[in-house]
Structure formats: structure tokens, C-alpha cells
């Protein structure tokens, strides 16, 4: 293959997608509104809060032209609650944020990068799709805007580990026809788990395929021989179960 990359998105690509998420900033200087291809950006007027795409917010933050308000679910209190929920419930992940009420019928439904899931008004009790990468990026670039960055970092780490453990455990049941419910799993987690889970599923498929092959061979043999060996057949069925 020409492209050496594994299938799916690499972590930098997921992080790049995450940069379209809207976050709330408190600007520290004026900026005219910008008409960009990706959508218009409201004028900045300190100290009024404004929602900006993450990439612009990070840029302004690095230039010390703005402060980023971390979304409410990144507060230690909310993260602790979510982490508790994750550790108590062995099955399943904490649910994703609720969708806002559908706008009237004639407009298009809106989807993640345009949902305010990471602004200051976001729900405090649910992790959005890009929770891991957004949290990491905000902690990296704007840790001084957090009340308790070390604690948040610790909790994020804890959450990541609990959820990855669940993902890995799900592999146990991954056989033909098996499935894991992945509601609420974040983008980075999918990309992280893809290699491992994909590998496992692939491996299982290969094993199953060789067995299938064996069975077919046997069947053909039996057909050719003319009399079906019922006992063997049943055994095979048992195996398949």
C-alpha cells in the first residue's frame, strides 16, 4: 500500500477536527468580526463573552489576547461526578450530552461542530464527543484559566483510563455476532481503540474463516464420498456455537 497510515483517523487528525468546536472566550482586546469560509466570526468586544472556534481561541490565547472559559463539564466537581458514574456503572459509558430542541422543521438539523457542547453554557453533566482532546488542548494552552488545573488533569486521566478499560473489556464478547454498545464514546477514544479492536476483530475473523474453510472442505469431502456423517456434522455445529 502506498499510504503507510493505518485505516481511520490518526490522533492529530481527530484533534484537528476538534478545533472546529466552539468555546467561550473573554477577549482582552477588540477585534472586528471576520467573514471566514468556515463561517462568520463575531466581533470581539472586551469583556463580553464570545463563542469562537477552538483554533482561533487557542491562537488568541497564545497571543494573550483572550482568556478561555473552560466548559462547565471540565470543572473538578462535574468530572468527579462523571468519574463516579463511570466507575459505579460497569456497563456502558456515561451518556453524551442531550441534543438541543430541534429547531423548526424547515431548517437543517445541526450536528457536533456547531452544537454548543463546549461553551460556557454547555451541560455540566455530560462529556461531549471531543471531550478528551478538547480537555487536553485547553489544559495545555490555557491551564491558567482553570481553577484547579492539576485536579482536572488528574480526573481526565482517571476518566480516560476507566473508559479505555471498558472498551478493552468489550473485546471479550467480540465474536461473530457479538457487539459492544459504544454510546457516548469520544472521538479520540474511537481512534485510539480502533487499532486494537480492529486487530482483535480481524484476528477473530481469520480464525473463524479458517474454521469455516475446514468445515466447507469437510462437507465437500462428505458430499463427494456420498454419505453424510451425521455425528460429525453435529459436532461442527456445536463448535460453531
Amino acid at each position, binding site marked *: 500500500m502506498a499510504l503507510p497510515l493505518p485505516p481511520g483517523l490518526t490522533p492529530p487528525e481527530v484533534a484537528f477536527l476538534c478545533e472546529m468546536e466552539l468555546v467561550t472566550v473573554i477577549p482582552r482586546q477588540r477585534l472586528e468580526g471576520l467573514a471566514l469560509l468556515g463561517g462568520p466570526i463575531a466581533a470581539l468586544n*472586551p469583556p463580553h463573552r464570545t463563542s469562537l472556534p477552538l483554533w482561533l481561541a487557542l491562537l488568541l490565547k497564545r497571543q494573550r489576547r483572550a482568556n478561555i472559559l473552560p466548559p462547565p463539564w471540565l470543572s473538578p466537581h462535574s468530572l468527579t461526578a462523571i468519574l463516579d458514574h463511570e466507575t459505579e456503572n460497569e456497563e456502558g459509558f456515561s451518556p453524551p450530552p442531550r441534543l438541543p430542541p430541534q429547531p423548526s422543521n424547515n431548517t437543517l438539523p445541526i450536528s457536533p461542530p456547531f452544537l454548543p457542547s463546549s461553551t460556557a453554557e454547555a451541560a455540566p453533566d455530560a462529556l461531549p464527543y471531543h471531550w478528551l482532546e478538547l480537555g487536553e488542548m485547553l489544559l495545555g494552552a490555557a491551564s491558567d484559566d482553570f481553577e484547579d488545573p492539576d485536579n482536572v488533569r488528574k480526573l481526565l486521566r482517571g476518566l480516560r483510563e476507566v473508559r479505555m478499560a471498558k472498551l478493552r473489556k468489550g473485546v471479550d464478547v467480540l465474536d461473530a455476532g457479538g457487539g459492544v454498545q459504544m454510546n457516548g464514546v469520544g472521538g479520540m477514544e474511537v481512534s485510539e481503540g480502533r487499532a486494537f479492536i480492529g486487530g482483535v476483530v480481524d484476528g477473530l475473523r481469520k480464525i473463524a474463516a479458517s474454521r469455516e474453510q475446514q468445515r466447507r472442505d469437510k462437507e465437500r469431502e462428505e458430499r463427494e464420498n456420498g454419505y453424510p456423517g451425521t455425528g460429525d456434522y453435529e459436532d461442527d455445529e456445536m463448535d460453531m456455537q
Partner: protein
Amino acid sequence: MAPQPRIRGRQAHTPGSTYLAYTPNGKKLITVGVDNFCRIFSTGSDDEPVTVDDCQENNTAIASTNGFFVAGSEDGTVSQYSLENNKLEKILVRTSLPVRDVALSPDGNWVAVASDELVVKVVNTEDMTQVQYLRDQNRGVKHVSFDKTGSHLAVSCTDGNIYMYSLSSEDPNMIRKVEGMIMSIDSDAEATSKVLWHPDGRAFATPTVSRDVQVMSFSDWERQKAFRTDHSADITAAAWSPNGAILATTSSDLNLYLWDTKSQKLLTKFDDMKATVLAMAWHPTENILSYTNNDGELFIHSDIVPSEHASLLSQAVQPAPFFHDPSEGRSGNATKPLTNGTKQTLPERRARRDGTPDSLDDILGPDAISDDEMDDFVEDDDGAGYAPAVNSHGKRTNGHLGALHSPSSKRRVHGSSSFAPEIHEAFQPGSTPWRGNRRYLCLNLVGFVWTVSQEQSHHTVTVEFYDREFHRDFHFTDPWLYDKACLNENGTLFSSQPKGDTPAIVYYRPHETWTTRTDWRTELPKGESVTAIALSESYIVVTTSANYVRIYTLFGLPFRIYRQKSSPAVTCAAWRDYVLTVGNGPVGGDGMCQLQYTIENVKRDEVYQSEDTVALTPKSTLSSVFFSDDGDPYIYDSTGVLLTLLHWRTSAQARWVPMLDTTLLSRLSTGQKQETYWPVAVANRKFHCIILKGQDKHPYFPRPILSEFDFQLPLSGPKPPAKDPDAMHEDEDEAQDPQTDQLRLEHTLLLSSTLHTQLSSTLSSTRPSSAQRLALQQFDSAVDKTLLQLIAAECLAGEDRGMKALEMAGLLHDSDGMMLERAGKIAQRYGRDLLRDKIGELAERRLAEREEEEE
């Protein structure tokens, strides 16, 4: 120097650490030491002391009430002894490790025991099975100390922190961990880290590492003034005099100092201690300081305060040494005694001074009912004159009651013979009172101005902007002691109060100039002080204590002056040419003056609203007054409601409309949060405020971030709590409860029609910008759109709701004539043909009316 004071040294115990305590009535003095007896001395008698046997050995602490005393010993027992028969009554509590300190609550019901154990026990002296455990500290405890109400306990831990507990509830809880005040010392060290509550109850003091005695205010935990002692060794004992006017300190350098609380200056010094003094106690009423040393000796030092300072002891309870006394009132108007200070105490003080010598109030005054506060109860049993001065009527003066008894004195407001209405005190919008040595003079959306007092002689003022590129922050040294400021995009306005011969000063400093210096300063006539100032884009408004409203242009030209009709002035605000002044009007039903406001256009010299009422609920006060960025007046009151004035440009049409009730915010609906909102501004139709947690009343440093809330008219209570955040519901995909949907639409309808009214009245008198015109159109269509949604909901609900739907159709603004048609279509879609026909009739009638008008 006074004649050599009488010192009676007595060998009370065998050499070793010795401690003492006075009974609150001052009649007895009890000492404990290393040997197994206690001694009880009677004040004023040289007789041999009474000895109480069957004590433990190596006693380390003692505390006493009038009827009994408790002593703690190194073997871990705390025993209670009766003073009536001088016998051991019972052993209150045992600890596994040596007891280090005991303290009795002022009512004598509880004894707090500090020991080398991690837990402080608070034991009921009547029923020793009732024990409260204070467990937050993680090292042994050296001292415990009750405040004068007995509801708070300060625990000095050996880890160098003070743990402040509230004991008023069933379960004691730690309210504050004070770090960095006391040193971390061993529990058996001679040095002390005891918390000394000042008798006025608002502050406490502790010895510090640097051998100073630092005062800290209780409620806001700010460091106040400090006594800079020059002890060459750690302080081993310190004590406030019973009225708090003198502080005595001693240390292992064998000096004993007396300090004046007010000036923190040394009063007198004794350098003839024979051994390190370990405990000191003032006689509750007389000029006696007794102390015990580590050599078993007791000294009863009569006349310790030299005669030239002895008057200090006979004064009333002195205030603790604050940088800025919180009771000075939030604006600190020196010249307005009527509106100054806490409201409840004012009429009482005046009534007392007027002298109603035989009124029931004097007999049943707070001093008679508050038996538990024995600190104040001065028994002048020997007539030595140490008790507070007696007035000509033979009653004690009220001075010793101070301003601290406001709760019990509130009753007197009605009982006093002269009725004095409560006046709303003046305030400057956007400013905070002193806390520690700093305060905000002005906090708004442009930036903030704050000041720090430096050694009383001058302040340092700092002006900071949110938009740091637009303006540069600056700060300057301020010898005039500015106490009010206004800030906007163009400049900063300051004003100071008159002081001595210096008149009040108004100072304006523009941010940007093209000449070298355009800031100016103007003086008010002598004796006239500033009550509030306001700065707009074109004028400066100053209201003064002489009830004048003075208006200047931005370059200092006096433009107008007139006397305010309602007085005393409360506050003012300005926006472009509009000036809003608020003053106290006639007395309302609740005994408080009703506030009245006046709005005028200064440029056109036109009064829009004259002496109209500021609509407040009874007993609530005004917290802030400001103009929004669109130029509409807003007020925020003490009940947490934001109101705006509609139709204020038409005389007698103005009315107050609540735009947001912060008590109904959904974030408070869980009941877990306790927070209040400190108003900053209204901009972009949002309420900008600072969220204050807990009991805070004003923002403090570091500057908290601003929060913003959308308007929410108080139509219904907060939505039912969204369960608790921990319990996450998986599949409750909110099937859009039709009732909440209805409520939401109704709210949107009222809000947009209110905003539409507000904006259209603004536009009728100003030249509208295109953005404003667009906004007006949007509100217009928002009203119609919401109505259509409501009609749709009614149609969906059933045929029998058609009447209501028709009523809504009648409310449609229908500026373009299309809306009624759409309403008809909606009715058709839901198959409500009757309704559709009626709407059709309505549309025809409307059309006909419109044609008539055109003709």
C-alpha cells in the same frame, strides 16, 4: 512615670509552670501548678488563699466561671471543681495524651479541651455524655479559644494553622482554616499561639512568627493592623484588657508591655519580670493584671496601667484596630451622620443621647437582658471608678454598648420617644466597601478602579481596563484620598471628601488627549461633601451633601447647578445627555423613606420624569443604578431583582418592569448553591454580574470573572431541578414536555414584546442606527413568530381551544399583513376550519381598517 505600682508576688505553687484564671465577676483568682492542689485567691484581700486538694499533678490549663472552674492536667484528665464548697465535683473528660488547654464558653455550658490528641473535644459541663468532636486538624492542638458569643471556637494547632469552627449547629463544622498567622510550635513549648478574641467580637489577634501581634477581622479574614512588639524572644502570653483598649504582651525575654489598641503604641513597659510569664489575666473590672510564671509564682499587679493612661480602662468597649472599620458604612461619608453607619443603631443612639431617663427602655435595656455577656457587665463594687462613667441621671452611659448590640437594640426603634425614619444611605454604583486595606471604587464593563490605603497618609489608585490594547492601565499615588470614581471610555472621574481645611475635590482625567494635559480638578465649597458622582460621554454629575446637583462639562466648565427636590441624595447615574438622580422622598409604610428619581436631559434642559417613585418592595434597598449600553435606566435591588424603566421619556408614563429575578434562576433551583449576584451592567440585553459565593456581599481581590445572564421575566418558578448531575439518565430524551414548551413560548412572547416596546421608545427620540432598526424588526417578527407557535400548540391541543387561538391571532402585530394569513394556514393544517374562517374574518377587518387609515 507613675509611682512604683504595688506588686504582690506570692509563691502559689512549687516552682514550675503555673497558670491562672479570674472568675468573670472578678472576685476570685484561681491558680494551678505542678503540685496537686489549686489555690483560690480573693481579690482585694491579703488572706491566705483557699486550697483545693485532690487535684491532679502537673496542671496545664484552667478556666473558670462564677460557680465552678475546670482544670486540665498532663495526665489527660479535665476536672471540674465547685467554687461554692471548693471541692472536686467530677472528672469531665479524659484524654489519652496530655491536656494542653481548656476553654469555657461564655455561658459556661461547654468546655473545649485541647490535647496532644488530634481531636478537640467540646464537652457539656452539665451532661458530660454530650461531646462534640472537632477533627479537621491533623496535628496536636495547643490552644482553644471561644469567641464572646460562644458560637465559634478558634483552635490553634501545632501545625501553624488556626482552625475556626462554628459550634452553632448540631454538628460543628470548620468554617475557615487560617494559614500563616501563628507559628508552628511544639505543644509543650512556652511560646503561645493562642487566639485572642478582641472584646468587640469582630476580630481576633494572635502572636506571629515575627513576635508581633497580628489582628485579623473575623468575617472577611483580612489582616488588619498589627502590634509591632520588639520582644527579643517568642511571646509567651498576651491578653486584651476587658474593654479591648489595651493589649498586654510578655515574652521569655522577661519584659511585659502594655499597648494602646487604637494607636498600637507602647503605653508602658515592665522589664523586671523574674521568670518567664506563662499566663496573664486582667481583672474584669479593676486596674489589675495578674500573671503566673514558670517558677510557681503568682503576681497580682495592681494599678498596672499608669495613672495617665488609666482612663483607657474605664472606657467602653473599644473597637478592634481595623484599617477601615466596617461599621463606617459603605461609602464612608464623614459629613452625613444621619445616613452613616448601620441603620438600626442610629435612632437608638440618638434617642439615648436625648435622654429619656425613666423610660422603660433604659431599665430593660440590652444590658439587663443579656446576662450571658458578662464581659460587658461591669460591677463597680468598690466604687473605685474603673467602671464606666455614670451620667447625671445616675444611669450608666450607653457607651459601653457600642454599635455591637444592634440586634437587641432594634426593638428600640419603635420604643424610643422620637421617631426617626430610616433613610436610604448614599452609595456610589459599582463600588465596594473597604475590606482590609483595599476596595473597588468602580467596577464596570470598561474596566475597574481600585485603591489601596497606605499607612493612612495616602492611597494608591489603579485603573485597569478590560480592553488592554485600547487603553493602558495606569496607577498613581493619591494624597487626596479619593473615595469615589467613575470610569468610561473617555476618562476617569474621581472625588474626595473634605478633610479638615481641605474642601472636597472632583478630579477628571481623560484617557486620551492631543494636548499635554487636560485633566482638571475642581473644589467644592467648604464643608460640602460629595454623595455620588456620575460620568457620561458628555457631562459630569456630582450630587453633594448640600443637596445640590452640580453638572460640569467634560472640560470642567460648570454647566448647571440646582437643588435636588428629594433629599438627602442617594445616588446618580448618567448616559450621554441624560442624568438620573435618586434621593430620599417621603416616608413609606415600612418606616423607610421612599426613593424618588428624576430623569432629565441636560442638553435640552428637559425633565422627563420628576420625583417619581423607585418601585422597591418594603424593607428592600437599592443596590445599584445604571444605564444600559442602549441608554435605558436599570436598577438592581437587594432582593436580587433587576428592573428597567419603560416609557421613561414620556412624563408620568414610566413604569418599572422586572427583567430578571436572580432568585428564580434555574442554576439555583437545586438548592445546593448559595450565591448572590453583584450587578455590574446591562449590555447586549444581558445582565452582567459577578457571582458571589456564600455570605459574601461584595467582590474582592483577585477580581472575579464576570458572568452574564439572559433576561428572564419572573413569570413562573424555576424549572424543576434537572435531577442531580450525578444521576445520569440514559434514555430520557426529553420528549419536549408540552407544558414547559408552552411556558418557554409565553416567556419569549412577553420578553420580546417588552424589548420591542423599550427599543421603539428609544428609537422614537433618537436617530436610529441601521443595527437598531434591524433589531426592532427582529423583535417585531419574534413576537409574531412566537404567537404563531402558540397558536399551533393550541390547534394541536384540540378544537375546544379555538377561542384562545383566536385571541392570540388578535394579538399579532401583523406588520406586513402576512402573519394572519399564516395563522389561517396553521388552523387549516390542523383541520380547524371554524378557526380558520374566524381568522379570515379578522384579517379582512384588519385590512379594511388599514385601507381606511390610508384614505
